[in-house]
C-alpha cells in the first residue's frame, strides 16, 4: 500500500470524527426548520462537547471500572468502523479487517458494552434502557444482515469496499430487490440511531427514552465521548447506506489520487447534506411509536429485507 492510501485512510478517519457532530447538528437544524422553530447554530454540537469536556465528571459512588472504560470503548469501536467503511475511497488498508458482517459485529460490541455500562450502577432507568436497547438491537441486527445478504447476492462479496468497486464497475443497477433493501436499511438506521419513530434523542421523558436512559448516569467527558460516539454511529450508518445504495463519487481502486479524492469529498458532503435533510423530514413527518410497537416496526423492516432476498432469487440473477 502506498503512502497515499495510508494518508487517505487516516484522512478518512479524521474527517469522519470531525464532521460526525456536524452531521448531527445539521439534522437538528433541519428538524428545527421543518417544525418552524428557531434552529440552534450548526456548530452547537461542538460547543456542547467542549463544555462537557471541561466539566468535572460526577461518578456514582459504586461505579465500576466497566462503567468508566465503556465511553472509550464506544468511541474506539465507532472510530474503527469509520475507518473500515469506505466513505471516500475503497482501497483502504483497513477495509479487509472486517467485512460488513464483522462491521455489524462491531456495532453489536458497542451496543452490548453500553448496555452493560448502563446496568452497572443499578438504577431503575439504566437497566430499563439497557433492556430496551438490546431488544431493539436483536430485532434490528437480522434486518441489517438481510440487507447485506441482498448486496452479497448482487455483487458476490461481503466486504463493503469490494461491493462499491463491483457496483461502480456495473453500468446500470436496476435490481428490484435493492428498493426493498433500501427501505429496510432506512428503517433500521432510524431504529439503531435512536431516532423517531423508535426513540427520541431530544427527550428525557422517562417512560419513552431508550438511549438517553442508558447514558443517564454519564457526565462530563464520559458523556461527551458517548455523545460523540453516537453521532459517529449515525455518520457510519449513513456511509454504509451510501456505499450500498448510492456509491457514486467514492474513489474506487485504480482511480487516480488527488482528483478522485476531491470528488469523493464533495460527493460525500452533498450526500450527507441531502441525507440529513431527508432524515429530518422523515422524523418530523412520523410520530414516535409505543415501545411495544417497536418490534412490529422492526419486524416490518426485517420482512422487507427478506422480501428483497426472495425477489432477487425469483426475478434477479
Amino acid at each position, binding site marked *: 500500500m502506498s503512502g497515499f492510501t495510508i494518508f487517505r485512510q487516516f484522512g478518512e478517519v479524521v474527517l469522519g470524527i470531525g464532521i460526525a457532530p456536524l452531521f448531527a447538528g445539521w439534522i437538528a437544524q433541519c428538524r428545527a426548520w421543518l417544525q418552524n422553530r428557531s434552529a440552534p447554530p450548526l456548530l452547537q454540537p461542538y460547543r456542547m462537547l467542549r463544555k462537557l469536556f471541561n466539566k468535572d465528571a460526577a461518578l456514582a459512588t459504586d461505579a465500576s471500572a466497566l462503567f468508566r472504560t465503556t465511553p472509550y470503548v464506544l468511541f474506539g469501536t465507532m472510530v474503527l468502523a469509520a475507518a473500515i467503511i469506505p466513505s471516500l475511497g475503497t482501497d483502504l488498508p483497513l477495509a*479487509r479487517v472486517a467485512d460488513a458482517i464483522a462491521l455489524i459485529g462491531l456495532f453489536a460490541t458497542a451496543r452490548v458494552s453500553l448496555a452493560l455500562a448502563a446496568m452497572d450502577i443499578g438504577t431503575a432507568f439504566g437497566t430499563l434502557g439497557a433492556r430496551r436497547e*438490546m431488544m431493539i438491537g436483536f430485532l434490528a441486527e437480522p434486518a441489517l444482515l438481510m440487507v447485506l445478504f441482498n448486496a452479497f447476492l448482487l455483487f458476490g462479496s461481503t466486504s463493503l469496499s469490494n461491493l462499491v468497486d463491483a457496483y461502480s464497475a456495473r453500468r446500470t443497477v436496476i435490481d428490484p430487490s435493492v428498493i426493498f433493501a433500501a427501505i429496510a436499511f432506512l428503517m433500521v438506521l432510524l431504529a439503531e440511531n435512536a431516532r423517531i419513530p423508535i426513540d427520541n434523542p431530544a427527550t428525557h421523558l422517562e417512560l419513552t427514552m431508550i438511549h438517553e436512559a442508558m447514558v443517564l448516569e454519564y457526565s462530563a467527558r464520559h458523556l461527551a465521548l458517548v455523545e460523540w460516539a453516537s453521532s459517529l454511529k449515525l455518520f457510519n450508518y449513513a456511509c454504509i447506506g451510501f456505499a450500498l445504495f448510492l456509491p457514486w463519487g467514492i474513489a474506487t481502486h485504480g482511480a487516480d489520487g488527488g482528483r478522485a479524492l476531491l470528488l469523493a469529498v464533495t460527493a460525500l458532503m452533498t450526500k450527507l447534506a441531502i441525507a440529513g435533510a431527508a432524515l429530518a423530514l422523515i422524523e418530523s413527518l412520523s410520530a414516535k411509536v409505543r415501545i411495544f410497537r417497536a418490534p412490529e416496526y422492526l419486524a416490518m423492516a426485517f420482512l422487507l429485507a427478506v422480501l428483497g432476498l426472495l425477489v432477487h432469487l425469483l426475478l434477479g440473477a
Partner: protein
Amino acid sequence: MNLSSWTSWSIQALSRNDLALLLTCVLSWLILGVVALVRPHSVRFVAHVLFPVGALVGLGVALLGGIALTAGHAVQIVVLPLGLPDLPFHVRLDPLSGFFLLLLGVAGAGISTFAAGYFRSGEGTAPGLLCLQYHIFLASMAAVVLADDAYFFMVAWETMALSSYFLVTSQHRIPEIRRAGFLYLLMAHVGAICILLSFGVLQGGSWQFTFDAMRSARLTPLWASTAFLLALLGFGAKAGLVPMHVWLPEAHPAAPSPVSAMMSGMMLKTAVYGLLRISFDLLHVRFWQWGVLMIALGLFSGLFGAIFAAVQTDMKRLLAYSSIENIGLIFTGIGLAILFEASNLRLFAALALSAALIHALNHALFKSLLFLATGSVLHATKQRSLGKLGGLIRRMPWVASLALVGTLSIAGLPPLNGFVSEWLLLQSFLFTPQVPHAFINMLIPLGAAALALTVALAAYVMVKFYGVIFLGQPREPSLVHAHDANWLERLGLGWLAFGCILIGVLPQLALRAAGAVTGKLLGQSVKLGSPVWWITPIAPEQASYSGLYLLAGIAGVVSVTYLLVRILTHGRVRRTASWDCGYPWQTSRMQDTAEGFGQPIRHMFGAFFRMERDLPSPSDIAPRYRIHIEDRLWRAIYLPIARGVERLADVVSVLQGGRLAIYLLYSFLTLLSLLAFVL
C-alpha cells in the same frame, strides 16, 4: 540444534506413537480415579493432588490431539485385547478424533484446575468417589472419540452417560436432583438404543461391527436414511436437540458446576462427534434432504434455546438453554455441510463444517467458563436464582472480569472467538443460493434470518446474564459477604478465557485445525489466508476478517483517545450518589429483575411458552412478581407418552388378576390357539 528443528523433531517423535500415548493418558485418568478411593474423604489429597494431575493429563491429551491434526500425520489404529470374542476393541486416531480430543483436553484441563479449587467435603458424595466418577467421565469421553468399532463406542458412550449420571446426582438427598438424574439417564439410554440400532443397520449384513467394515458397506438409500435418522435421534437426544432436549435444562443445573461445565462443554460435543463420524465417515452417501432436515432442526433448536434462555430466572438453567441454542447452531452448520456436499459443492461444505467444528470448540471454551463462574458465584453466595444476585463485580472482581470475557464471546462479539464461528456460519449461508434446488433456495434466506435472529438474541441473553449477576446493586443483603474465587479457580477460569481470546484474535489457528478435519472428511478445506492473523475462507475479495487488527485497532484508538482526554482535560472526578433523573430514594429492588428482562421476549414469543403468573397484591409493601414459564413441548410430547405408558400398564396389569382359574384359562387358550395354528 536450534529450537525450531528441535520442536519439529519432537513433534515427529510424538506423532509417531501418539495413539499409544493417548491411551496412556486415558488409562492414567482411570488410575487417578481409582487412587482417589485410597483416601476417599480427604479433600486435600483428592482436590489438591489428583485433580491438578488430571488437568496436566488433559493438557497432554490436547497436545496429542493437536498433533494428530498436523499435516502428514498418519491415521493410527490399535486393537486392544478386550471386548467381545469376535469384536475386540478397535482404537483409531484420525484428524476428526484429534480435533475433538483437542477440545476435550483443553476444556478438561481448565475444568479440572477449577475443580481442584472447587470441590469441598460435605457436598453429597464423598470427594474420593466423586473424583473416581469424574475421571471415569473424562476417560470415557476420550474413549468415545477414539473408538473404532460399534461395541467399544457403545461401551464408552454408556459409561459416559452412567458416570455423568452419578456426578449429576452427587447431592442425591434432594428429590429434584434425583428426578433430573433419572430423566437424564432415561433419555440417554433410549438415545443409546437408537444409536445401537443405527449401527445395526450400518453393519450392512457383514456382521462386522468395526467402523472399517461399515465404511466399506454399501447400503441402499432407504437403509442409509434409516441409519442416519436413528443416529440423528440418538445423538440428538444426547446433544439436547429440540425436541429431545427436555433432560438438559434439568440435569445441567442439578450437577455441581464443574460437572455442568463438562456436560455442557464436552459431553454435548461427543454427540456432535458421533453424528459427524456416522454421517460423514461411516455412511458412504449423503442426501440433501438430510441436510435440510438438520438445518431445520438446528435452527429451531437455536431459536428455541435462545428464547427460553432469555426468560430463565435460574442462572444455570439460563446457561443450559443457551447450550441448546449453541448446539442448534452447530447442527445447522453440519446440516449445511451435508446439503453442500450432497450437491457437490465441497468447498462450501468444508466452510460450513469448519464453522460447526470451530463453534463446537468455542462453545466448549466459553460455556465451561461461564458454568464454572456460576460455580464460584454459587459458592460465594449460596444463590442460584438471578432474582437474588447482583453487584458481584465489586465483591468478586476476578470472576467478574473473566466471566465478562466468556459473556462477550458467547454473545458473538468481535474480536472474541464466538464471533468467528458465527461469522463463518453466516458466510456459508451466503452460498446456499448455489445449491441446485430452487425450492431450497427460497427457504434458505429464512434460515439465514433465523440464524441472525438467534445470534442477536444470544447477545440479549448474555447481557441479561452478566448484568443481573455481576452488575447493579446487590439484591440481597447477604451478598456483601461474597468472597472472590481462590487461585486454583481463577487459574481454571483464566485458562478458558485465554482460549476464548486466542481463538478470537488468531482465528486461523482454529481454522487450520478444522481444515485438517474437513480435508480428511471432504477432501477439501477452506483457504486460510496469510499472514496468520487473516482468515479468508473462500477468497480474499469475497470476505476477510482479522481479529488481531480489530483488537489492535480498538485498543489503539481507545488508548489514543484516553491519552488525548487525559492531556487536554483536567480529568477531575467527583464521587456522588447516582443521578437517575434526580429520584432520591433508590433501592436495589428498583432494578430490572430477571423476569423484567424476560418481559419483551415473553411479549413477542408468547406462543412458545405456557406461563403461570402470580401477581402481587397492590397493598403489598415488598411485592414480588413471579412467573412460571413452562415448555410447551413437555406437555405436547412427553406427558402424553408417560400417560400412555401408565394407561397401558393399567390395562396389562389386569392380566395378573390373582384368580387361578383365569390363569389356567390363559394357558388353556394359548394351547388351543397354538393347536389351531399348527392344525
